[in-house]
C-alpha cells in the first residue's frame, strides 16, 4: 500500500517535470528571439532586456539555463511577468481563489446531478428523456448554455447578477453552466456502469435474496458503476480548468482563465508557462487522488 502510494508520487513528479520541460521547450521553439517571446507586448527597453537575460541566465550555456529554470520552478518560483512587472506567482495567486471556488462548485453540482440522474431515471420514458437531454447538453457549446442561462435568468427575470464575482448569487449561473456538461457525460458513464453491473450474476444473486431493485442498485451496482466514473476524474480536471477560460469570459468573472486569456493575447509568456505548469500540478494531484479512490472502492486492487 505504502509502496503503491510512493510509486504514484514518483510518477506524479515525473509528469510535473515533463510538463515543465515541455513548457520550456515550447518557449525555445517559439519563432524569434527568446527575449522577444518573454517580453511579449510589454515595454521593450534595454533595462528589461538586461533583466531578462540575467533572470533566465540567457548568457550562460543552455544546460545551465534549463537546470536553473527547473530549480526555480521546483522552489515555486515561477518567474516574472515583464508585461505587468510583477512576479508571476503574485499575478496568478490572486486569481486562484475565484477559479477554485467556481471549479469546486461546478464539480459538486455536476457530480451530484449525474448521480441523481443515473440512479433515478432507470426506466422507459424517464430514461429516454434523460439520455436525450444529456446528449443535447454534451453536444452544446458550454458558452451557448451560459448565454442562454444569462438571457433567461439574469436579463429576463433578474434573478442573478450578469457578471462579476460578488457573493454566492454570482456563482450560481457559472457553476451550473460548467456543471451541466459534466453531469451529462458522467450520467452516461454511470448509467452504462449500472446497466452492466445489474446484468452481472451477483446482481441476480442479490435479487434472489429478496432485495428490492432499488437496494440492489444502491448497495451493489452503484459501487461498480463508480469505478469507470473515477477514471474520468482526470478528464474532469481538464474540463474544469479549460472550462474556466470560457466561462469566466462569458460571465465576466475574474480568475485564472481571464489571466490566461489576457496573457495569450498579450504574448506574456512567463504567465502562460506558469499556468501550464500549474495545470499539470492539478492533474497530478487529482490523478493520485483517483488512484487512491480505486483502492478504497475495489478491494481486489488492494493486493500489492
Amino acid at each position, binding site marked *: 500500500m505504502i509502496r503503491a502510494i510512493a510509486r504514484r508520487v514518483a*510518477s506524479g513528479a*515525473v*509528469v510535473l517535470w*515533463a*510538463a515543465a520541460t515541455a*513548457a520550456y521547450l*515550447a*518557449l525555445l*521553439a*517559439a*519563432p524569434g528571439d527568446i527575449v522577444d*517571446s518573454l517580453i511579449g507586448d510589454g515595454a521593450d527597453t534595454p533595462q528589461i532586456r538586461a533583466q531578462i537575460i540575467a533572470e533566465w541566465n540567457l548568457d550562460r550555456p543552455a544546460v545551465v539555463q534549463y537546470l536553473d529554470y527547473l530549480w526555480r520552478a521546483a522552489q515555486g518560483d515561477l518567474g516574472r511577468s515583464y508585461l505587468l512587472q510583477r512576479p508571476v506567482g503574485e499575478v496568478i495567486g490572486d486569481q486562484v481563489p475565484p477559479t477554485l471556488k467556481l471549479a469546486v462548485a461546478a464539480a459538486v453540482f455536476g457530480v451530484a446531478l449525474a448521480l441523481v440522474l443515473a440512479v433515478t431515471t432507470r426506466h422507459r420514458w424517464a430514461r429516454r428523456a434523460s439520455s436525450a437531454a444529456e*446528449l*443535447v447538453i*454534451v*453536444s*452544446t*457549446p*458550454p*458558452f*451557448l448554455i451560459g*448565454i*442562454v442561462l*444569462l*438571457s433567461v435568468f439574469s*436579463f429576463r427575470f433578474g434573478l442573478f447578477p450578469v457578471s462579476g464575482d460578488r457573493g454566492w448569487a454570482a456563482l450560481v449561473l457559472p457553476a451550473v453552466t460548467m456543471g451541466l456538461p459534466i453531469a451529462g457525460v458522467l450520467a452516461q458513464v454511470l448509467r452504462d456502469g449500472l446497466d452492466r453491473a445489474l*446484468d452481472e*450474476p451477483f446482481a441476480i444473486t442479490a435479487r434472489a435474496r429478496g432485495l428490492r431493485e432499488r437496494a440492489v442498485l444502491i448497495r451493489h451496482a452503484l459501487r461498480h458503476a463508480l469505478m469507470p466514473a473515477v477514471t474520468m476524474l*482526470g*478528464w474532469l*480536471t*481538464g*474540463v*474544469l*480548468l*479549460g*472550462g474556466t*477560460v*470560457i466561462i469566466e*469570459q*462569458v460571465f465576466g468573472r475574474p480568475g485564472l482563465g481571464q489571466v*490566461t*486569456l489576457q*496573457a*495569450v493575447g498579450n*504574448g506574456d*509568456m512567463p504567465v*502562460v508557462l506558469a*499556468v*501550464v505548469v500549474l*495545470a*499539470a500540478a492539478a*492533474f497530478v494531484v487529482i*490523478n493520485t487522488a483517483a488512484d487512491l479512490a480505486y483502492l478504497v472502492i475495489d478491494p481486489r486492487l488492494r493486493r500489492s
Partner: protein
Amino acid sequence: MTLALPRPVARRLSLRRPRPGLAAAGLVLLLALAAVIWPALFAGDPLAADPLRVLEAPSAQHWFGTDQLGRDVFDRVVHGARHSLSIGVAATVIAVGAGILLGLIAGLAHRVADEALSRGFDALAAFPLVLLALLFIAIAGTGTTSLVVAIGIATTPHYARVVRAQTLVVRQAAYVTHAVAFGGSRVRLVLRHVLPNVLGPIPVLAMIGLGEAVLIAAGLSFLGLGPQPPSPEWGAMLSEGRGYLHIAWWASVLPGAAVTATVISLTVIGRHLQNRFEGRPA
C-alpha cells in the same frame, strides 16, 4: 454458458423499428455536407450588410433574422458550415493519423517505450484542451492553421489510446498465436492480423471525435482565437452576437444551435454504427 443472459434459442424475429432520431440525424448531416460543398445553393451572400435592417427578428424573408450589421443570419450559418466543419475535419485527420501511428508504436514497442508513450497520452489527454490550444496559439500565433493544429494535437491521445489498447488485445489474441503456427514473419503478422483488426473501429470513433473537434473549435473561435471577422464561423458569430443577446437572441443562439445540431447528429450516427459493429443491440 448459463451465467450469460439466455441465448437466442429458436426463432428470431428481427423487428425493424422506425428510428426517427437516426433519420433526423442523417438529414442534418446531409444538409451540413451540402452546405459545405455548395453553400450558394441554399443561401445568399454571408457578408452582404444592410444597415437599414439591423437585428431584425426571424421572418419569412430572413429565416434566422439579421445581425447587428444587418447581415442575414441564415446565410451566415450556411456559409459558416464550411469554416466550422473543415476546421473540425482537418483537426480530426491530423489527430487520427498521429493517433494511429503513436498508438501502434506504443502497442508494439518494448515495455519501457510503451510505458513512456502511454503516460504521455494520459497526461496529454487529461490536460485541459483549451489550455493546450492556448499554449500552442501563444507560441504559433492566432489563426485558422494554429487552431487546426492545436485541436489536432490535443485530440491525438484519444485515438492513440484506443489504437494502443486494441493493438495489445489483438497481439494477445489467440488467432495471432495460431498465425505463428504457420511460420509467418512478424511483419507479415502485423500487416495481416494486427493492423486490420486494430483499425476497424477507427472510422466510427473519428466520426464521434469530429463532433468533439467541431465543439472545441467553436469554443476557441468564441474566444477570438479562430477565423477572424467577418468570416462567418459559428463560434465567432456567437461571440459577435453575444452583445445583443437581450434584444436579438437569434443572432447568437441560432449559430450555436447549428453547432449543437451538427454535433448531436455526428454522435447519434457514430454511436449507432459503433453498436452495430460491436454486435450489440443498438
